[in-house]
Structure formats: C-alpha cells, structure tokens
C-alpha cells in the first residue's frame, strides 16, 4: 500500500487536497517538535545520582508563547478552511446552470434519476437508473440526495464528495468532475448488514459520450414505460 490520497477528479478536490497537505505540513512540524523534544529531554535530563531537578513552577513568557502560537495557527486554519467550505457547500456556491440529478439511497442500492429534456427533476420525463451514476466531465452537477430507509452516505473518493443521505430530507450537493474515468460510489455510513457492499458504478464521460449515453438511456426508459 502506498500512502497517498486517491487520484483527484474534481474541482473541489483540488482545494481539499491542497488544504489536506497544508494541514499535513503544519501537523507534521508540530509532531516532530514535540516528539523530538520529548525524546531529547528524556535523554538529556535522565535521572543521575547527585544531580537534582530545577525547582520551578512555570514561566509566564513561555506559556504565553505556546498558547498564542497554536491559537494563531488554528484561527488561520479556521478562516482558510471556512472559505473553502463556503465555496463547496454554501447555498450561494451552487452554480445556476448545473445538471441536476436525483439520487435516492436505499438498502443497499443507489437509484439515480435523470431529468428529461427540460433539465428539471420531478416530472414525467425523468428516468431512473439503478446503481449507475454517469455524468459529463467539466460540467457542474447538482445531486439532490435522499434516502428511503436508514441513513446512507454518498461517497465518491476520487471526486472528494461525501454527503449523508438522510430519510425525510433532500440534501443538495454540487461538484464538477475534471477528468473522465470510472469510479465507484461507496456507502460511508453504517446502514445495515449490506453496508459493506452498497456500491455503484460512477462513469465520468466526455461531453459527447455522455450525450450519447443519455439519449440511449432516455429512449430505453420510455420504451419500457409506454
């Protein structure tokens, strides 16, 4: 096993990965300081006959410094993370012209509903595909996430997408793929005995191939319903 994040295939993934590695840098630096410090002190101040410990109850300057530095770093991380979070999740961040897809989770499958030509969900020209989630590359996609039974979690590692599907709620999320490929939806919230195998195929198409797939599926769906 190599130690890495999976290949990134979405716009938000770039920001998330950058933040991940920033935090990685900060935390590893802190880790090294503390661990080396502890080991060094253990060695340097190991008990020996005839020497005695320094009698001190603390040092205000030192304590202020090591309170202030973590506080500043944390506030910085909070503000920086908050901006990225807002770009991904806030209501204002949702693109207007996005392709809207409905996803309904139930034990233990993902039902994906595509809008008809009007690009609106919830009318007669919608069609539903089971356990296949196919989207075009370089186009923002909004997923309206629902659940029929337990709580599930819609997780596509490569797209850096994760959102719980909660019964009784419709949760919208959006993302934009930046590379084509085949991935998987994984359920990330314990949802019963089939949780471990609640997966679905994700295909990120070139625009042309998506259009072709969409047309074919749409036609097939109407052939069966008519």
């Amino acid at each position, binding site marked *: 096993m190599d130690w890495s994040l*999976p290949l990134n295939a979405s716009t938000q993934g770039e920001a998330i990965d950058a933040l991940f590695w920033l935090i990685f840098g900060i935390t590893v630096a802190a880790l090294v300081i503390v*661990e080396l410090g502890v080991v060094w002190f253990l060695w340097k101040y190991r008990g020996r006959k005839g020497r005695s410990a320094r009698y001190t109850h603390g*040092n*205000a300057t030192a304590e202020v410094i090591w309170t202030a530095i973590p506080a500043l770093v944390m506030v910085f991380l909070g503000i920086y993370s*908050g901006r990225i979070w807002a770009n991904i999740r806030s*209501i204002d961040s949702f693109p207007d012209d996005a392709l809207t897809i409905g996803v309904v989770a139930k034990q233990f499958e993902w039902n994906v509903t595509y809008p008809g030509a009007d690009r609106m969900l919830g009318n007669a020209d919608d069609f539903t595909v089971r356990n296949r989630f196919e989207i075009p590359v370089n186009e923002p996609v909004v997923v309206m996430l629902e659940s029929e039974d337990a709580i599930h979690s819609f997780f596509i590692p490569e797209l850096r997408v994760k959102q719980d599907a909660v019964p009784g709620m419709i949760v919208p999320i959006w993302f934009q793929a930046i590379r084509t490929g085949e991935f998987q939806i994984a359920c*990330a919230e314990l949802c019963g005995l089939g949780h471990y*195998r609640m997966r679905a195929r994700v295909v990120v198409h070139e625009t042309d191939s998506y259009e072709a797939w969409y047309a074919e599926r749409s036609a097939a769906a109407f052939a069966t319903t008519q």
Partner: protein
Amino acid sequence: MATIVAEATGTPVLADEHEMPFIRKYVFSTDHKVIGIQFLFMSLFFLLVGGFLSVLVRYQLGWPGRAIPGGEALPEAMAPGGIMLPEFYNSLVTMHGTFMVFFAIMPLLVGVYANYLIPLQIGAHDMAFPKLNMASFWISVPAGILMMASFAVEGGAAGAGWTSYAPLSARPDLSGVSVGQQMWIVSLVVLGLGSLLGAVNYITTIINNRAPGMSWFRLPLVTWALFITAILILLAMPVLSAAMIMLLFDQTLGTNFFLPSQGGQPLLWQHLFWFFGHPEVYILILPAMGFVSEIISNGSRKPIFGYHSMVFAIIAIAFLGFIVWGHHMFQSGMNPALGMSFMIATLVIAVPSAIKVFNWMGTLWEGNIQFHTPMLFAVGFVMLFVIGGLSGVYMASTPVDIFIHDTYFIVAHIHYVLFGGSLFAIFGAIYYWFPKMFGRMINDTAGKIHFFATFILFNLTFFPMHGLGMKGMMRRIYDPAQYEHLSDIQDTNTMMSIAAIALFGTGLYFLVLFFWSLFKGKKAPANPWNATTLEWQTPSPPKHGNWKEVPVVYHGPYEYSHPDMDRDWLAQNERPDIVSPAHPGRTGAAPDSTEDGAE
C-alpha cells in the same frame, strides 16, 4: 460550617479496623477504596471483553471470509461454519465500541480512580454519600450483564454502531436487531444512572470535604480533572438518557421521534447523541491527563510546569466541549453555516490541549527523570496523544472532513486518543497506584516489558489506519475488497491484524502480571515513588476511614526538588518549618502563579 468541622474531624473511630462481616467489607461495602477496587475488577473484565471483540473484528479484516479458528462453536446466526456473517460483524463493531467506551475506559478512569483517589487526595474519610457510592457500583454491574446477555437473544446484539444512528437503530426491519438494541438502550440508561450517582458524590465531596489547608489551588491535578469530569458527566449523561428513552419508545411504543414517516427527525438523534458524545470524549481524556500530570511531575522530580494554566486548560476544554458537538455532523445534512461555527470552536479547543502538552514538556525540561513503569506509560501517553490530537485538526477542518469523515482516519484518531491516550494513562495509573491499593508492587522490569510491547504493537496496529483513511477506506465495512479504490490494502490489513492480536496478547500478559502481583508482588512501602500528595502519606493500603487524624495541608501538590530540602520531595502535609520563603527558579515568574502555586 459547624457541621463540616464535625464531619471532617469528628469520626476518628472510622480509622480503626473494626470487624465487619465479609459481605459488608468486600461485597456491599460503602468504603470508597473497596468500591474503587470493585470497579477496577469489573472494568478490567470488560476491557478484556472489548479487546476480545476487537480481535474478532480484526480477524475478519485481516483474513476476510476465512473461518475463525474454533469459530464452528459459534451459533449459526453469527458465524455458520466459523465464517463470520456481516450482521455479526456489525454487532462486534458496535459492541466493541460500547464496551470499551462505557464499560471499560469510563469506569476505569472515573469509577476506579475518582472513587479511590478523591477522598485520599483531599484528606477526607470517605465520600460524602457512601451508600450512594455503593449503589453506583451495584447499578453498573447489572447494566454490564445485560449488555453481555444481548449477544444471546434472537437477532443478536445491537449492530447500529456505538453511536446507534436512527433510523437504523430505531427500526428492527432495517437492522435485523430488535431485542438486542433495546437491551443496549436499557443497559446504557441504567449505567448512566449509576454514573450520575457517582458524579453527584464526587462533586459534593470535593466541594465540601477537603482537609484543612486544601484550598482549590492546592488540589492535585487528578482531583481537578476528576472534578471537572464529574461535572461533564452530570450535565451530559442525562441528555443521552433522554435521547435513549425516546429511541426506546420509537422501538417499542410506536412513537416517531427519529423516524421521518410522521415528521420525526433523524438528525435530532445525532444532535442529542453528540451533545452527550463530545463531552463524553473529554470525560474519557481529562482524568487521563490528570494521571499523566501527576506521574510526569513525580517521575521528573519537578513541580508540574504551569499548574494554574493546567487547571484553566481543563476548565476550558470542558466548557468548549459542550459547544463543539456539531463537528461530528459536518456531512450529516446539517446546515453548512452551522458547520462553520462548529469548526471554529473545534479548532479553538486544540489550544488548551496544546497548552497541556507543552506544560508536560516543560515539566520534563531540566528534570531528574526516573524511568519507572508508570513514567514510561505517562511519557507514552504524551507521545501518542499528540498524534491523536494533531490528527483531530484534519477532521476539524470542514473541507478536509468531507473526504476523511467516516473513514479509517477517524478510526485511527479515536484509537490514538482513547487507547494511546486514555488507556496508556490508565496503565500508568494502575502501575502507579497499585502499591497503594493492594500494598504490593508490580515488578518494574515486567512492567517495562509490558510498556514496550504495547507501545510498539499499538503503533503497528493503528498507525497504518491513517493511510487506510487517506485511501478512503470506510469505517465499519465487513469486506474492503468490494471496492476498487481499496484493492491494494489487504496486506496492510493483514499485518495490522497480526499486530492487533499480539496487542491483545500484551493485554493478557498484563492481566497475568496484575493478578500475580496481587498475591506475590513485593510488599509495598507507604510511599514507593517518594510522592507528595496526601494518599501517599497513609499506609499501603490505607485503613477503613483513611486517617486517624485528618491531615493538614501546607503546600501545593507537587513540591519536588525544593532547593532547601535535603530530599527531593516535600509532602503536602509536612510542616514547612524547614522551608525558607525564598523561591529560586521563580524569578520572573508567571503572573498566574500566585501564592498558592508557589508553596
């Protein structure tokens, strides 16, 4: 006021060992020390149970689908032919978490050491309400038995995770578990009642029954931590009980608090659970931090660095602990704007934790460090807790949490905090206070072997989980091989499982050592570690009633290596005639180090 004097000093007869029948002395005892020891045996048993469940979990992850050796003995509903079923796996994961959190670590920290140490450290004869204290233990026992018994009922034990998210936990048709889940709820409500009685006792005792001279800022940090922990239990536990009762009604009475069918809200459960659950995390770490402060100061032969900031850090952590619960719910469908405020509060809580770590380092600095077993575990705690604390920063950051939420990164984090943190501190505490509790020593070399084996195997088991989380391996999955992005992790999982099973072996080694020392250990002196706090100024073990005469306290808790002393420790109750008013080493001292800290 008059009553307190009478209660604190008016019962010297207690210190005489008067004859009591066996059952009053060891079974239905009201002596806080006996109750503490009873909790110790109970929670070590459940630690063993929880550890064993984790071995089964790791077996499945290490060798998916292979028959468990000897597993043919398990019922068909769990593992037909010895091969574990997914629903049994879910129960194992759930019950491992439940036993470890509620029946092992929490009683080890609070049940054992709050009971045993608080009256001794503050110079009281016993708890304020000894009978309630006894009730608290005897309420916990049936709760544990009920939880164990749930494996035997139809449908098996609860399998919705230790967090038991509704609606899965509320609807037997979704989880396949009905009676087991109800037993889980009842057991935890009963246990919560027991913890509550304990908390009322600890708080009252610390407020009202301190010995003369034992002012607030002369309390040992263990007692401080346990005091704040008791407040957390007092305020958080009843919220869990309320939520549990609603969940039980959803299961049995046909209500729909957490079921969306008639307007109920699944997220309400999560809010209530984590409103309890996050303070619970601090319930599980604050006492551990107290033990470590005590042991590091003793092992370094130095006063604790920044006593006052240590106390304020505990208080700050406890306060902030009540307003960060939403960070468990960033991906739950909660309003993203709320995510923002919970993130800030969560990042802020890293600051008092950092203060504590740096103060421990400050205590080591220029010390005269003694490497006895408790000290090794305390230093091990610092080294591992840092990893757990820093990995928390990743999930506090909401965007990164999108990726790592509900992955093994979280599993790594919680184990670095609760095993590398709490449990290492608990081992340290057991080695440290064993002589006081049982009047015998645990062999130091044998203890060191236990430490190094545990430290190495712990890291081999849990450190790779960070990598699995980065790969995107989800929690609580029975078979990672189902997923393409997890196709190359089996070797790592197998290695971790081998390490985990060996780690369980070190636990067995510890139990053998523990029981062997109980009967065959070298006789312990009253103060084997040359420690300063009051419990070491009584015989080992202390008699019923603790003191013939209530001690008088003259100093803060960690007066090690005072320059005017010819030995390197000064007990809290020793007369200060020999001590000069000069305080070298306090030049340019902190403004927060007021008179009390200097003494």
